[in-house]
């Protein structure tokens, strides 16, 4: 029972006789700061949830409880750069799903509003060392504001790091909706018939592009004329929410999977003069030059995914991170929506797959810590072990990218998280069922 020590450690932490539960010093761990070189036998001082000191053999302040990190590794908590955590409990049960609102344009909806702090997904995901996530709505064109959250906290207010981290836009696609029987059965010939003609699909695409541009134009008109409106004029919540985007203060998270959509997204950003972050860009490897030129960061989805096309190399999804890294593109990894059986807890294993196929190990760690924080505009708050940042820390018995590694303790804003969860309770209960 490899995790029994964790339980006792959590218990010890909970009962420690120190006043502040978010102040302590960790001593003797190998500290992987991700900001610079690793520190063997390192110490980290945490006060009121913030990192106040990082170094080798720091003296223990008298008022701080000491956590022995000997033989263990300390990493910054991992960040899932794109997911639906907290918005969905059970994929197939409609009542537990809060990702997709009705309507094409919902820039005013905020994901954090619908995050359930008691979701079972939080403790289960923290268990593997993920301490924050960008949780995002999805749906038609503009589905709402993605929120950056901590995966621990009593309320959504406590969990929110950046409620409006990015406005999620799905780039129009030339394709008929999926889900018909022929597509499901894998019969491509029948699927083509069911999907209708290219002309029809292109017409639908053109219409969406037109609607999208018009929506942006009306928002821009609203922004420009707003000051001239008589006092007491009812605000338009949708258009109001567009202003930070149009002012370039807030990025637009654009889901653009294939090459055509990625190119469309870059052109759209140029045309609308907006700051964008590409999302789920599975064919980004085909457009590295242009993405780099536009200086646009990318949120990649899971590496453990099938290639988009039958005749792609078998490891196409595995190699994309390495290709972006070589091209000098800033990217992070998310587990992304709509991938029913993938969950945030496997984020480190997605990154590991990229390492197996050419991404340097330190770059893989950055893609789920530091770079995710930078892309989401909170590089000064989380993502590395540096003074002044939130003490989002994980203490492990090995490399967190390896499935066999156990995360011994998670700290979110300096508070030691409960490492227990429903799954472990069920394990304890049933492993002990009498013969």
């Amino acid at each position: 029972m490899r995790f029994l020590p964790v339980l006792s450690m959590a218990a010890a932490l909970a009962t420690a006789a120190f006043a502040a539960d978010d102040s302590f010093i960790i001593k003797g761990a190998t500290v992987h700061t991700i900001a610079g070189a690793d520190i063997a036998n390192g110490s980290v001082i945490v006060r009121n949830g913030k990192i106040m000191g990082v170094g080798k053999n720091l003296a223990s302040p008298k008022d701080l409880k000491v956590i022995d990190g000997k033989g263990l590794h300390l990493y910054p908590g991992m960040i899932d750069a794109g997911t639906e955590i907290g918005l969905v409990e059970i994929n197939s049960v409609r009542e537990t799903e809060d990702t997709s609102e009705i309507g094409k344009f919902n820039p005013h909806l905020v994901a954090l509003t619908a995050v359930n702090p008691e979701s079972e997904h939080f403790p289960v995901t923290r268990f593997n060392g993920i301490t924050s996530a960008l949780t995002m709505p999805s749906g038609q064109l503009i589905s709402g504001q993605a929120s950056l959250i901590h995966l621990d906290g009593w309320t959504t207010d406590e969990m929110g790091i950046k409620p409006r981290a990015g406005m999620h836009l799905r780039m129009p696609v030339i394709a008929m909706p999926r889900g018909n029987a022929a597509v499901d059965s894998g019969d491509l010939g029948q699927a083509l018939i069911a999907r209708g003609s290219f002309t029809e699909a292109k017409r639908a695409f053109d219409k969406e592009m037109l609607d999208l541009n018009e929506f942006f134009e009306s928002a821009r008109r609203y922004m420009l004329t707003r000051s001239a409106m008589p006092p007491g004029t009812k605000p338009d919540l949708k258009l109001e929410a567009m202003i930070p985007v149009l002012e370039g203060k807030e990025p637009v998270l654009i889901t653009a999977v294939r090459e055509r959509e990625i190119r469309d997204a870059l052109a759209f950003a140029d045309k609308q003069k907006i700051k964008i972050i590409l999302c789920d860009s599975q064919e980004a490897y085909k457009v590295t030059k242009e993405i780099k030129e536009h200086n646009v960061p990318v949120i990649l989805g899971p590496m453990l995914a099938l290639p988009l096309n039958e005749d792609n190399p078998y490891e196409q999804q595995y190699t994309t991170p390495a290709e972006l890294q070589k091209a000098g593109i800033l990217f992070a990894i998310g587990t992304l929506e709509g991938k029913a059986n993938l969950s945030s807890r496997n984020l480190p294993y997605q990154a590991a797959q990229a390492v197996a196929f050419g991404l340097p190990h330190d770059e893989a760690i950055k893609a789920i810590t530091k770079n995710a924080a930078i892309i989401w505009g909170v590089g000064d708050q989380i993502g590395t072990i540096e003074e002044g940042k939130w003490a989002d820390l994980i203490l492990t018995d090995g490399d967190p990218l390896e499935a066999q590694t156990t995360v011994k303790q998670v700290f979110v804003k300096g508070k030691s998280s409960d490492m227990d969860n429903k799954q472990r309770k069920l394990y304890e209960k049933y492993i002990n069922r009498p013969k």
Partner: protein
Amino acid sequence: MRSGSMKFRRLVLMMTGAVTALAADQPVLIQNATILTITNGTIKGSILLRDGKIAAIGEKVMAPAGAKIIDGAGKFVMPGIIDCHSHIMAEAINEGSVSVSSMVGISDVLNPEDIGIYRALAGGVTTANILHGSANSIGGKTVVMKMRWGTNAETMKFEGAMPGIKFALGENPKRAGSAAQGAPGGAATVRYPATRMGVEDVIREAFNDAKEYKAKWAAYNGKAAKGEIVIPPAKDLKFEALAEVLDGTRLVHAHCYRQDEILMLIHVADDYGFNIRTFQHVLEGYKVAKEIAAHGGGASTFADWWAYKMEAQDAIPYNAAILVRKGVLTSLNSDDAELMRHLDKEAAKTVKYGGLTETEALSLITINPAKQLMIDKRVGSLEVGKDADVLLYDGHPLSNFSKVERVWIDGHDYFDRAEDISSRTKKELEKKALIQKASGGRGPGAPATLPAAQRVPNQ
């Protein structure tokens, strides 16, 4: 349109994999490797593949004349992965119009050109149990295939493997009973059953009928043997398959989630005197491990899938470990063309979740599924005399940083990562030339690329 789609597939096949004639293979000797035999510990040494079999394993093995020598220094050798639950190759999944569809068989609809075969190979899978979906309380007949990419569906069949049949319990078979969901194809028809109670009833009724069917044939055979002139009963393919289940000549693989439905099926099987060879998915198997073990059933589950449907709410990643500790023959399966590519990484999770040893973890994807499919005399471990279904890794198979470099089935080379990479430029040129030819030379004219077909998940 259909032939167009097949033409496209054929093109893809030519692009992505070497179609090699199955001539007698050169013996292969892998030297200086770490050999994970699974059943006889770990050996630092050599393994010889000859005439389709594992000919020798040891610290030192003499190279026979003409053998291809592979330096395995720093590398790992293990038996080919066996996936006890896959739907690759299947061009149709559910015969959803009836709840008992034992008259149909998946081997009638297998596409040997499915790119999923090659991708599974690249993930180390050499054998897979191909099943129908889970829309039917009693589904169709299943078949065990070796991933002999580049051959035909008949040649890919695992010779002599016991045939099977898919059962399904819980949400999926009862879903078709909901008017809102309707039957596949879109018609809003109501199909019995709509509850777990109804699922039990459907299975009992089917076996009552099958017993009656068997009795009729026994009576006829008895009279015919005595030379009486009697009219034989009508053959009924639905009951033929169920009669084989009652005779113990067809293995039952039952899709299930909750402990109540697992117990139900155990009771039904005990009442009618047949065995459930594997409980598939069996995410609450850990709650009734004792009962599954007592029945003599196996369990084939996921490492950590959960939360995708109501009946997966109590799924825990410790399931496999608990089942193993409680004496149930357990395997990990994919049910999914993507997951199928990293069953090794899934096995690694059971070391963390529940503390299995590395050998126990690897057994979940090798010898245990081989036993469940009753093909363990042939495959599932590295032993002299077994089929040369062998993987070469660039690191320990349970490390997330390792990958499969080579795959042999029956001693024949089916996957070579270096060769795959080096041949890409040539294939790309070949593809362009073929597209030119297909488009009658009208410019680049590349046909719009079709998205990889997405199947309804059959969890």
